[in-house]
């Protein structure tokens, strides 16, 4: 702090996550990181680069190639008094550990009558748009948000990438943190003393009065870009960053809808049975009489992600589509 102005520094999303891991490891010796290629390689997305040298192989552990294995062992380590951070290379491969996450981590506390909680944090990259095909490009965070017993976070900003991890580690229950792989190179400004943030409230990232754009993760930035374009046309969009997908902070978006009377959900997941569907239902339940137009959803095409660049672009929500749809919704009733 100088002259009352906070010093800001520029960091990438990747560096922000790394700083968060480093700080957690320094603060608490029970914290360790394990996963595929997290050691020497520094992680598939270079998030843990340098941490092996700093903390040694006991605390930065390269595991055998076995998602069910290291997630299950992570549950055990958490039960045994540790605070594991388990990295699943990408959400696509979390499917090999789905039983450990859904059938085990999420229900231990319940099945043990409140005796055993599982303070496990799982980090995983998610999302499409990198031209790596169907089996590499899934966005399944909304699908995990369906599961009671776990918390699901989706940091979009560098501040959240930096701040959510510690809060998640302090949480007595299992927390999944999804990092959109398209964000790792994104730069943002971080206050010098940036640290833990809350993990249960949504944020209004841009204020507006004409329509509410509700999104999270990489789609947040597409929504903000769309809001900028709309603003030049005289349409002021309010943009909401959900941050936590389970639990959902509905108050923030219901309040916003009460102000703007229109809601468009932008979600990289598929539409059917989706998080976008859930949000739409909550608006129907909690703000139906506020609406001037039906809630709309912009999701990914319901196909396995194509490999070809122009096909993939057409399959994902894009800025121009958000703009078109929002414009139509606002113009529809004058």
């Amino acid at each position: 702090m100088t002259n009352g102005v906070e010093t800001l520094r520029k960091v990438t999303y990747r560096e922000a996550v790394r700083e968060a891991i480093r700080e957690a490891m320094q603060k608490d010796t029970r914290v360790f990181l394990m996963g595929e290629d997290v050691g020497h390689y520094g992680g598939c997305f270079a998030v843990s680069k340098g941490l092996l040298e700093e903390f040694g192989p006991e605390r930065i552990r390269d595991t055998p190639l076995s998602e069910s294995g290291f997630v299950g062992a992570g549950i055990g380590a958490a039960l045994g008094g540790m605070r594991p951070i388990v990295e699943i290379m990408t959400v696509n491969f979390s499917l090999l550990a789905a039983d450990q996450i859904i059938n085990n981590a999420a229900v231990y506390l319940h099945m043990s009558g409140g005796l055993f909680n599982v303070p496990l944090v799982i980090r995983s990259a998610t999302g499409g748009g990198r031209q790596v095909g169907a089996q590499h490009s899934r966005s399944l965070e909304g699908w995990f948000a369906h599961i009671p017993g776990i918390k699901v976070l989706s940091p979009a900003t560098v501040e959240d990438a930096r701040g959510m991890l510690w809060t998640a580690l302090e949480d007595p229950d299992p927390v999944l943190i999804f990092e959109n792989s398209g964000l790792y190179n994104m730069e943002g400004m971080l206050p010098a003393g940036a640290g833990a943030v809350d993990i249960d409230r949504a944020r209004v990232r841009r204020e507006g009065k004409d329509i509410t754009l509700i999104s999270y993760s990489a789609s947040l930035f597409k929504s903000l870009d769309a809001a900028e374009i709309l603003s030049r046309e005289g349409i002021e969009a309010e943009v909401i960053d959900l941050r936590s997908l389970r639990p959902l902070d509905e108050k923030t978006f219901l309040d916003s809808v009460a102000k703007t009377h229109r809601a468009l959900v932008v979600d990289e997941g598929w539409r059917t049975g989706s998080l976008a569907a859930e949000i739409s239902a909550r608006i129907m339940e909690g703000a139906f009489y506020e609406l001037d137009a039906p809630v709309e959803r912009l999701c990914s095409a319901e196909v396995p992600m194509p490999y070809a660049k122009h096909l993939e672009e057409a399959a994902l929500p894009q800025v121009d589509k958000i703009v078109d749809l929002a414009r139509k919704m606002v113009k529809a009733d004058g």
Partner: protein
Amino acid sequence: MPKKEIELPYRVSYLSILDENGQLDKELEPDIPEDLLLKLHRGMLLARRFDERMLTLQRQGKIGTFAPIKGQEASQLGAVALLEPSDWLVPSFREMPSELWRGKKMENILLVYGGYNEGGHIPSDLNDLPVSIPVGTHPLHAAGIAYAMKYRGKKDVAMTFFGDGATSEGDFFEAMNFASVYQVPLIFVCQNNQWAISVPRSKQTRSRTLAQKALAFDMPCIQVDGNDILAVYAAAKEAVERARSGGGPTLMECITYRMSVHTTADDPKRYRTDEEVAEWEKRDPLVRFQKYLKDKGLLSDEKIQAVDEEVKSEVKAAEGRWEEITRKTPDPLDMFEHLYAETPPHLLEQRAELERELAEKRKEADNG
């Protein structure tokens, strides 16, 4: 109540026939017809040259991420050479030499990595499955296929390829267990190329061999020098014959080396030394096999040169055909193809919606 050793039906052996200096063990030399020997050489050379070309195309930004195969030509072709056309190939994502051997077209492989769905098309007369990205989950499919072949009274066998890293996945063990319990005609071919991205074989498992994992299922197994195509062939011959004659599954561990990058998004200098790579270069499967064929009088330096020119021009011609196909950029509407045998109404609606959007955009563009 004695405490005594329990005898297991199988043990692990190691097989090497043509050593890294090109020394041949005459006793063990398999009887391979001359035309097949030459075809194998050509297949190895074609795979090597195509791999090199793909790497260049990737560096030029013309194709996307792919997994190079340099160094693994023998450890694949020695095994697939035993398959009949109607047998099943269940590959991972690093089996280009096997796929070419089986009849997949180079232009189709380029189409896949160039991002076009058409490339996924497998010649319809082949029972070859597409690449599988999730590590180690596909050997189970091979077990099921082999079970179906047995149940239906067919003589066909299945052969599945996977890496050293894949042997740590639970699904791999489940596949071996299933295959052994049901005694299905399946050959598990592990490409132990020493690395799973940055994780060395030594950190993957404490077991001395990967082959021995089969012993837990009372399944025969063998470890072979994967850079020795004669050893791979001899071991695969035994395994395929056993499978075809109702003798059940086998696990083969081929010791080889990933001489190139993991994928084109990888930089191996971050985790392995140049000296290690240089050591393995001395064991190059192609050089060794060429020496053998020259010693046998089947090849000369001039002939090798001629085959090399031939395969290079084959690669070039395939590249030309690929460029021709990609010039006709596929419609984004293609993404709705092949999701269900019959496209259901909700997808037809989404397709129509995208079609309208694209038409609107085109109109806007035309109007200025």
